[in-house]
């Protein structure tokens, strides 16, 4: 029983963290260009910069 006093707040806190992170991601336009993100992995980084 006493474990619940710790576990429930921890679970809620972790859920809230996820929620806050999702809000942050939305605010920073992380979901604006989903198809682009899939394409960008294919770009070869050329070693132009030292």
């Amino acid at each position, binding site marked *: 029983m006493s474990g619940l006093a710790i576990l429930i707040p921890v*679970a809620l806190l972790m859920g809230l963290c*996820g929620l806050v992170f999702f809000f942050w991601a939305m605010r920073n336009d992380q979901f*604006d*260009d989903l198809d*682009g993100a899939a*394409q*960008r992995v*294919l*770009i070869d980084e050329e070693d132009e910069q030292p």
Partner: protein
Amino acid sequence: MNAITPASTGPSQSIVSRFAVPAIRCAGCISKIENGLNGAPGILSSRVNFSTKQVAITHLPEWDDDQLKRKIENLGFEAQILADNPLAEEKGSTDKLIRALAVAGFGMMNIMLLSVSVWSGATGVTRDLFHWLSALIAIPVIAYAGRPFFTSAAMALRYGRTNMDVPISIGILLATGLSLYETATGGAHAYFDGAVMLLFFLLAGRVLDGMMRDRAREGIGALLKQTAPGAMVIGNDRKTTWVAARDLQPDMQMMVAAGGNLAADGVIISGSSSFDCSLMTGESEPQPRGKGDLVLAGTLNLSSPVVVRITATGEDTSVSDITRLMDEAGQRRSFYVRVADRAARFYAPVVHSLALLAFVYWMFAGAGWHQSLLIAVAVLIITCPCALGLAVPAAQVVAAGALLRNGVMVKDGSALERLSEVDYALFDKTGTLTLGHPIPMNLDDLSLAQKQITLALGQASRHPISKGIRSGLLALDIEPAALDDIQEIPGEGMTARWGHVNVMLGKPERSEDHLSSQLSVGTDMVVLQLKDEIRPDAAEAIAELHALGLSSSIISGDNIRSVSLVSRTLNIFAQASASPQDKVEAITRLTDSGHKVLMVGDGLNDGPALAAAHVSIAPGSASDVGQQAADAVFTSESLMPVALSIKVARRTMQIVHQNFALAIGYNIFAVPLALTGMVTPLIAAIAMPLSSLIVVGNALRLNGAAK
């Protein structure tokens, strides 16, 4: 127009400009554009958005939009300057819904965890503690995530109407209030999980609906061409400067190059040329205009440069008359009630009276007001209008996605509903039944070498005739010849040297009454005839519409001769020389005689008709006004998507009706349980998602509907 944002890195203010680049197709294009732009001095950063086919460039004020556009074109991509995103506000509303959905999801999962332990036998202090925890999570979650429903319900009630948000809001508020009372008095049943889950499912429906609208609007936004974002204005010192359309003033003198659009109404003060007025009047043949003649904004200068004294700009141009007509015509459509709201008109009173009856019955049966209220809330929760709130948007989103893959962008769900009802199709001619751009008719008159030279010359020019010739030749797999000294002589054409021979593609010596172009190689001359052709499968599309029970006819602003040519080829009735007002009247006449009219049109002159019709479709080559006014836009050259979208829309409504039937079936099974007081929060928590999953699963069957 351009958002000016304070620079975080640069010393002075940086500007963000946005361009539509439809040709972005792969990762290579992304890196080519970004690397090509990022190196240049004065450009701070550039970012390609692959999904919307747009490039956002952060740059110093020393670059203007036109230079940046040329810079992108030098990298090998056609680009169009985009005004600041006019849809930003619309997108904001979907973002708000997604946030509400995330919060509801968070609340639902946590409350469900607590509820599961209550259902599996927690009693006494533990149960009370878990109920309190649930309340602690649920109340802020409902307050935040329920706002879209509460505000909409309050709005409806204020005007004495009811929509589907009214029963939802009442159900949620009652369930929450009662659960709170249960919690405070240490009762056994709390419906926090049910209330939050209901919110979650309904929000999921709203988010789907919003995302579908955004996706189509973004696609259309990328298509929008700015007819003329500005003009080259001749100053007092005879120097020309670029002035944006909104800064143009009457009495300025603007220079309009061949192939350029007019940004304002005006009178020609020097030069003479032919103008393509098809966007304004529907007239397909070029109109000659000389000194002293009036030319209108939105028309295209075809043959030679002219200087125009501006008489009206912006709001005062003849375009604004059309805008006024469109506003009036659009009134009728705003009375359309979506199928979910129509169902809610019957659904809400039935559900409310059922719940009320249950309450009254149990009160008389002596169950006590507390027990009676619990049962009434169970009825409200179990009859959650998931079929209305989730199934309808789910079906429409899947159908719109299937149509999108076939090149039709439907702006919203109500458009699909209206599309399924049409029984009469009206077509504009120029740009709708025809392609709207000239196609060379006699390419066979050229030898292979001549074709290659023509292609090389045509590629170097941006004149609409050159574009027509170029696309005609590219379709024949012709390789361009190697030419030296390619030059554009304004108003005359393109010249170059082919080996030792002078070659030229330009104005024919003898002027024709339709579009033509002359190729000369040394002393050999060939005249190419160009015509605006009927779309390749217009006849099949009209036959298909006929099979679907739609009669078709043409209504065009063009003269009777060119209209009858098309109407005879396609074998349908036609009305010629129709003004925008005439088109609206024709639609009103048809509507009054009981028809639901589908208008297919592209030009500025079709705008009012597109807004007046029951539903409207525009081709992707349409004017901005046409695309804004239409409910759907198709991007292919073929006219078949019009028939396809009607087929898919009808199939969608079938599925929607099936979903209603499923929902009613579910209610017939579940409501008696609730009425007899046998529904506990546990049963509600199982039954609700089950019914939602079934209707969503049914909606997913539409995925293959557009094949």
